[in-house]
């Protein structure tokens, strides 16, 4: 199967791999998984007082497409507001990486991970209501 240059680049040189302090009040953590393929993805954001994502980290155990999708998302969300980051769609990810149809679910997983991280952050700051159902 021919994978895109972008996908291979993210897979071979994943950006922002790592972890942040989950307990910290300005860090939101999203942990999601797709049991069909046994993937598990953790995505974390560090948010400044004015709602800007200053840093993002991920740790993904899964296929190349899952790693590339989460790596790309951490790159995209840095510098965005949490509301902007919440608008990232799996189709944007799939398009950027030119994911083959059987790997679209990896981009769904990455979208779900950033949404879960934002929700977790908002839960910590007591601002949970607003975008609770954004994933729907």
């Amino acid at each position: 199967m021919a994978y895109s240059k972008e996908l291979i680049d993210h897979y071979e040189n994943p950006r922002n791999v790592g972890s942040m302090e989950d307990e910290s009040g300005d860090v939101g953590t999203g942990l999601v998984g797709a049991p069909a393929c046994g993937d598990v993805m953790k995505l974390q954001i560090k948010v400044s007082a004015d709602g800007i994502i200053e840093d993002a980290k991920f740790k993904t155990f899964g296929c190349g497409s899952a790693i590339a999708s989460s790596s790309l998302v951490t790159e995209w969300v840095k510098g965005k507001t949490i509301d902007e980051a919440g608008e990232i769609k799996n189709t944007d990810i799939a398009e950027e990486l030119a994911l083959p149809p059987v790997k679209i679910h990896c981009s769904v997983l990455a979208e779900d991970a950033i949404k879960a991280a934002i929700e977790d952050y908002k839960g910590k700051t007591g601002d949970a209501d607003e975008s609770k159902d954004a994933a729907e």
Partner: protein
Amino acid sequence: MNDANVKAKENTVKSCWSCKGPVAVAALFCPTCEAVQAPAPVNHFERLGIDVTYDVNTGAIDRLYFDLQRQLHPDRFATKAPKEKALSQQQATALNDAYEVLKDPLKRADYLVHLLGIDVLPEGCNLVKDQAILIEAMEMREKLMMVDSMKAITEIQRETKAEIDDVLCALSLAFAGDDIRGACQLTTRLKYLDKMMGEVRQSRARLLA
């Protein structure tokens, strides 16, 4: 040869595609003209003629499978019409599918959970929200990533195997007690453990290389 596997559906009758005579829906062959029939629309358990249960007798599954497969062997249809050849192929495929699922504890659990009514895997991509399962999966993988000795890998393999055995016991109890939600959750856990075993084997191979 007509027919050991009619039990469950013998009261449901259709007409044979070849001679138009009456034939049980689940029958492999027409009792009148002996033409092979299309695969019946039955679940995997019914196809092999066993009860719908998680605690299957794998020896019995093997025997039933090989017996049915013998009746459907391509050699028996070498001189038959193309339609019969095609139908026997469909039958053999359906039988193989049933066997593959029922003999494997994970696939059987997944299948049974679906059969009993809970949609665990909508559209093939189901996102797990069960944090306990995900945290366990993440921690196991992280641990595996750190190891650099065969001894440590063997230890992780032993632990994972023990976890799998526990989950299989629990699954059996959950299904027996009609606890489908519990069975569903255990099936998800088993999928991650199964994946973990695969990763362990890969790590072992990497270390040997």
